[in-house]
């Protein structure tokens, strides 16, 4: 059987997985936890460097434990970007070494597209409009003429970073998103926040400022502020997603990326899809956050279409955009 080993480490989660055409066979991970504040790229990269050997061998031993032989591994896939430079470089170096040592091809994959493809695989959705929301990214995408096109995106920071920034201001520990969600669920009063949608694009930086002001200047309860923050930011995302679905005439939508675990966001999107007669899909939480399985799975798709990465083309790209990738594994529509 064809197996792929996938390495993911674009941010704070280092994750390695073995995947076959049928299923995710084994996953191992190690998460960097900053002592204070947000992620320090250099520290995260050091964490990955010191944990890589351990996590890779746990994944390999895990696959053996499931009755597979390491001979069956046909390629090494790794996140080529987007992500934090030092982290990307650390993981890419390990991937190159493994590829040379095992004498199997290397496959550099786009992290964002990996989120999309594992979602399509796990949920069985064919051609959805995708809302991809993570720390640094907030994009609405759809497959068109051989590429994943970006229909709309944030003009400044990603929704995840906006949430994390406010969470730090509230002195909540990293990652702040889930803690904001918890507080928000206890909020009842809506406090004014700027709702900025320009055409199909969004802006979130004003949300953080407004939230700080609501706390310091107007002394609103933090539960109410978190509630209002989420309601505003998520409504913007849902609106742009709906507009993209109308424009592309697509009746499926897929949620991807770490912020996708937020239940209120899921609920809004589900309601929107329901009201327009469309279907809403979201994979299990472990495939929403950064994971090695999605990297391995996209690697598998690319390997099958003969799309491998020679070492000299394996440099990382911290700003790798999904629409730079020519999609070789899907039918041109």
């Amino acid at each position: 059987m064809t197996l792929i080993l996938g390495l993911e480490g674009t941010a704070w989660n280092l994750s390695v997985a073995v995947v076959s055409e049928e299923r995710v066979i084994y996953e191992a991970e190690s998460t960097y936890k900053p002592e204070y504040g947000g992620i320090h790229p250099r520290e995260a990269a050091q964490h990955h460097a010191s944990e890589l050997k351990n996590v890779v061998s746990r994944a390999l031993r895990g696959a053996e434990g499931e009755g597979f032989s390491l001979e069956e591994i046909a390629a090494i896939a790794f996140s080529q970007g987007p992500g934090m430079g030092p982290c990307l470089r650390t993981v890419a170096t390990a991937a190159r070494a493994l590829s040379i040592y095992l004498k199997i091809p290397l496959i550099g994959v786009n992290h964002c597209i990996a989120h999309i493809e594992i979602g399509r695989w796990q949920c069985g959705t064919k051609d959805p409009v995708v809302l991809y929301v993570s720390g640094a990214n907030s994009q609405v995408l759809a497959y068109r003429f051989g590429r994943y096109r970006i229909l709309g995106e944030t003009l400044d920071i990603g929704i995840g970073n906006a949430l994390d920034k406010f969470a730090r201001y509230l002195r909540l520990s990293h990652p702040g998103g889930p803690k904001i969600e918890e507080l928000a669920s206890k909020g009842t009063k809506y406090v004014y926040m700027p709702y900025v949608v320009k055409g199909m694009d969004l802006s979130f930086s004003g949300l953080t400022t407004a939230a700080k002001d609501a706390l310091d200047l107007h002394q609103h309860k933090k539960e109410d502020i978190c509630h209002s923050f989420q309601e505003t930011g998520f409504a913007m995302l849902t609106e742009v997603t709906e507009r993209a679905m109308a424009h592309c005439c697509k009746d499926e939508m897929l949620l991807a990326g770490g912020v996708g675990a937020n239940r209120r966001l899921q609920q809004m999107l589900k309601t929107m899809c329901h009201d327009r007669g469309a279907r809403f899909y979201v994979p299990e939480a472990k495939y929403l956050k950064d994971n090695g399985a999605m990297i391995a799975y996209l690697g598998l798709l690319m390997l099958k279409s003969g799309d491998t990465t020679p070492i000299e083309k394996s440099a990382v790209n911290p700003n790798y955009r999904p629409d730079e990738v020519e999609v070789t594994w899907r039918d041109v529509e």
Partner: protein
Amino acid sequence: MEKLSEETLMIQCAEAIVEIKDGFVYKRRIEKRYRVKEIDERIRRERTKSEAKIISEARRKGVPTPIIFDITDYELVMERIEGDLAREVINDAISERIGEFVGILHKNSIIHSDLTTSNIIVSTDNIIYFIDFGLSFIESSTEAKGVDVHVFFQSLRGTHESYEQLKRSFIKGYRRTFPNASHVLKRVKEIERRGRYVERK
């Protein structure tokens, strides 16, 4: 002979229902259940107001748009323009005149945001009207204008065989009314290379 009751036409899109009846167009922004009432009502009210404002602003600058008769919380009542959608009748001469008007919009920093041949009507008396300013905003950046023009080209590419020629005619008109046209057209090329934005209906 007098027609007793004209047909009512209803069109539903992502955020509004458009009803055409007795020579009037009623555009009503519909409630979205996914967002809290405070946001929903505010947004629908602001957008309705802003659309009316930009429609009138565009007309003041010399771009034909329907006259607004009434504006309530979530609904605009405007003049019905009799004619054909540009999508059905566009030719080089019309494309060039569209270019002139878009040039005027951009000279005045009005970004339409949904420039397609379905949002332009060629009236029976041969005037080119722009409609659907629901996503429009005021911004002077080259990027915003570039995206605006790019969206228009994409809409041509999707629906018209003589795309290249229509595009050239548009550019001719656009340059005529808008002194900064070259900058924006350069940006359009860049946006095309970036591969951003899918073509729209």
